């Protein structure tokens, strides 16, 4: 049987350290099996959580070599092959507070999620006595969202949360918001959408780490995009983000490419742009932004404008 070594990042009562554990494994053994073996045979003090051990409860998400996975669904064999290595680094999920070893603190995450009102606000026509009505087509629009198991894998490598989590919710919270925005039984999509905007809808960085990591094939990044479209539809064009997108649109329409220098001004207005001078200066220093560069329209600008026009028409109908 092949041997595997887990280098586990430990954190016990304010002490951080790493420890190596080696064991033999066979086909069909998962990362969770490895952890259980370590706990039962090598070191009972190792802490992690797991419950269903087949990918539905969301308790066992952690990071292997920096990437979030469900421990119970990830075969050691395939990891060994992917990384060409008999050693893997196991660490708790990123963007969470660690309680102990591989156990992270969910309390603040679940509390924060409440902002988007992640529950059905049923239409008046329905009642607890009669239940609801929904066509299968409308049901199909929401069925994917119910796959979320609240495992937190989407949180772990989120670029925006890593940059600043104070003004941005966890990706799964946007999934919840979109789930009810899209539910035909819901009476008040705006009641989920408005708080989603407040909670950072326009601050997502589109890195798509959330989508890449979701073990249940949800697509939080896409849901954020859908919520943004909804925000537009609802004509909530006053927010900074919506203006930013409008500015994108105008640039593309006018010159066929983005005018980065102008973009900030258009998005937030002159006053706010001034608050960004510091950033612009830093960008210029590293040669990332040339304020004197006013881009020319691209060669085929008329074609671009035609495409945009056609898209607009299509959207109307």
């Amino acid at each position, binding site marked *: 049987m092949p041997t595997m070594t887990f280098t586990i990042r430990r954190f016990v009562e304010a002490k951080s350290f790493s420890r190596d554990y080696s064991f033999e494994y066979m086909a069909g053994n998962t990362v969770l099996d490895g952890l259980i073996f370590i706990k039962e045979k090598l070191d009972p003090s190792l802490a992690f959580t797991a419950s269903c051990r087949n990918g539905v409860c969301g308790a066992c998400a952690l990071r292997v070599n920096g990437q979030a996975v469900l421990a119970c669904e990830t075969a050691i064999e395939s990891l060994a092959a992917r990384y060409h290595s008999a050693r893997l680094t196991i660490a708790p999920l990123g963007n969470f507070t660690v309680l102990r070893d591989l156990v992270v603190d969910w309390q603040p995450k679940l509390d924060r999620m409440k902002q988007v009102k992640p529950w059905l606000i049923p239409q008046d026509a329905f009642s607890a006595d009669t239940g609801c009505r929904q066509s299968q087509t409308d049901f199909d629009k929401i*069925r994917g969202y119910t796959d979320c198991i609240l495992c937190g894998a989407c949180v772990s490598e989120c670029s925006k949360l890593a940059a600043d989590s104070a003004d941005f919710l966890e990706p799964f919270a946007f999934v919840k918001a979109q789930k009810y925005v899209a539910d035909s039984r819901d009476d008040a999509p705006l009641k989920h959408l408005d708080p989603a905007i407040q909670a950072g809808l326009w601050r997502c960085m589109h890195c798509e780490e959330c989508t890449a990591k979701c073990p249940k094939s949800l697509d939080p990044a896409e849901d954020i995009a859908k919520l943004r479209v909804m925000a537009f539809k609802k004509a909530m064009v006053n927010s900074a983000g919506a203006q930013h997108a409008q500015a994108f649109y105008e640039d593309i329409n006018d010159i066929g490419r983005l005018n980065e220098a102008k973009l900030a001004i258009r998005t937030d207005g002159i006053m706010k742009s001034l608050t960004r001078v510091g950033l612009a200066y830093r960008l210029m220093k590293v040669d990332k932004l040339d304020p004197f560069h006013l881009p020319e329209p691209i060669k085929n600008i008329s074609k671009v404008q035609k495409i945009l026009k056609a898209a607009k028409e299509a959207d109307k109908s």
Partner: protein
Amino acid sequence: MKKVSRRTFLKWGVAAGAVAVAAPYVMMNKNNMFTSTLTEMAGAPALFDVLVIGSGGSGMRAALEAGRQKDLKVALMTKLVPTRSATCMAQGGINGALRHADARDSIEKHAFDTVKGSDYLGDQDAIRFFAEKAPEALRELDYYGVAFDRMQDGRMAQRNLGGHTYARSAYSADQSGLVILHTLFEQCLKNNVNMLMEWQLLELVVEDGKLCGVVAMNMHSGKILPVMARTVVVATGGYGRLYWVRTTNPFSSTGDGIGACLKVGIPVKDPEMVQFHPTGLAGSGVLLSEAARGEGGYLVNKDGERFMRRYAPDKMELGPRDLVSQAIETEIREGRGVGEGLHAAVYLDLRHLGKKKIMQKLPQLRQLALNYEGVDAITQPIPIRGTCHYSMGGIDVVDYKTCATAIPGVFAVGECSCLSVHGANRLGGNSLAEVVVFGKYAGNGAAAYARNNAFDGNQTALDRAADEWEQRFAAVSSRSSGSTVPSIRDRMAATMWQNVGIFRSRTRLEQAVRNIDELLEEYRSCVVRDTTRIYNTAFMNYVELGNMLPLARMVAMAALARQESRGSHFREDYPRRNDQKFLQHTIVTRKGAEYSLTYRPVAITDYQAEERKY
């Protein structure tokens, strides 16, 4: 100027945006519902009107019901993050005679199917009540937002599950439990239900017959705390983990709440009634759905023989669950299986179905076998064996309308309880229904009790119990020699599987009782080997084993006393049902190391027992 990637550019934008738009950002955590530090900060222990233990479907439903009554102080305590409960694993569906899919269905027919399914051990008054309330419970779930599959006219769709005359199971694809549990959780969030999450119940405290509260460990801080309560609703789930690797249940189904009730003298009803499912993966017990056999999968032994022809020549692999489970065990016992010990197995062979059909009809099943056995069903047979699936027995409930137990103020609901709706055998889809129907009535029952009764528990007794746990923690966690918790647990599971499993007999059961008594003794000096306080899961597992061992003892003892075969309980030495003697519930009570067993007649209102034929 160098090109800037879209991703990098946007990162800058956001970084800048953070500076610019920090001001209008709404305050978070205004209404913090997770009161983890609640009883610690207040100095004195808090007094709850209703304290629900366990956040599966039953606990959440109960907490929701009581929590809506704003004048009451309600909390939901659970040992994991709330959505990690067994309830999320249920796939098939949830029953109620809604009559959407089939107008011939009725409350009576649902009740009768359940009575018959229970092999007549179910209490007919409770079953009638259950069937009556199930349709409204389903409509309520729909109103809460459960994403049910739909009929043409937009009402909930229903499918047929085994043992039911009509299609009466509402469902959400193959993840009905997940969707129900998460929706109930959302409702708890909406209603600001207090959650003591990642708190493990250690003990119920009752002094002079009066409930004082509970002792629990806050896993986040590692503190052992007394929590005063006027009422406690125990909703801690089943005890499938008595069979450890040979169960479909999650790691958390260790019968903690039952253990706590036993300790204060509340009896357990019908503990011997444990349901087995024929197709669990060999290594882990993970459930492979019946669809595998439904689509035409073969069961073969190590010689490649389709052995079902010797047990059920007509139905072959599609015989009833108990018969198929027994056939598999016989093959293994007579040396025609593969592998050893608890991991011995026969094969589920799907290869003849072809790649196309497997990928179309059974993709998830193939994935499970790949993940957990490293076996590709398209090219290899899957090693499987019976696996413990459900606990019919549980905390003796004496009033099904409130879920009250023998001790005033203590209520029990869900898989940890025994009302008894499932009798000797539970039908598919009836458990989720039980959980939401009775969750509501337990929540109401507890709330009403809390309103009408002043707290007269003894706070000193509660503090003393907490102190005793404190000392126990110190003693056990620092002990350095003795058997380990997993080693005792594995031997318990082995004896349970071999002697109190699918086949039972006097000699085997007596052997089991002896083995478990020895293990109980060994447990007293076992080691945990972790002295730290914060999130000490080694100690958590030690507590769980302490709950499982007495329960294992009771299952074996009750199975030994029940000299008949009924539902899931199969005695080789008494292969027939005996209504004369055993149309009765087993009631087991524990007093220290003494266990005593009595019987109580089954409530029969509408249907006389007759032979159960399908």
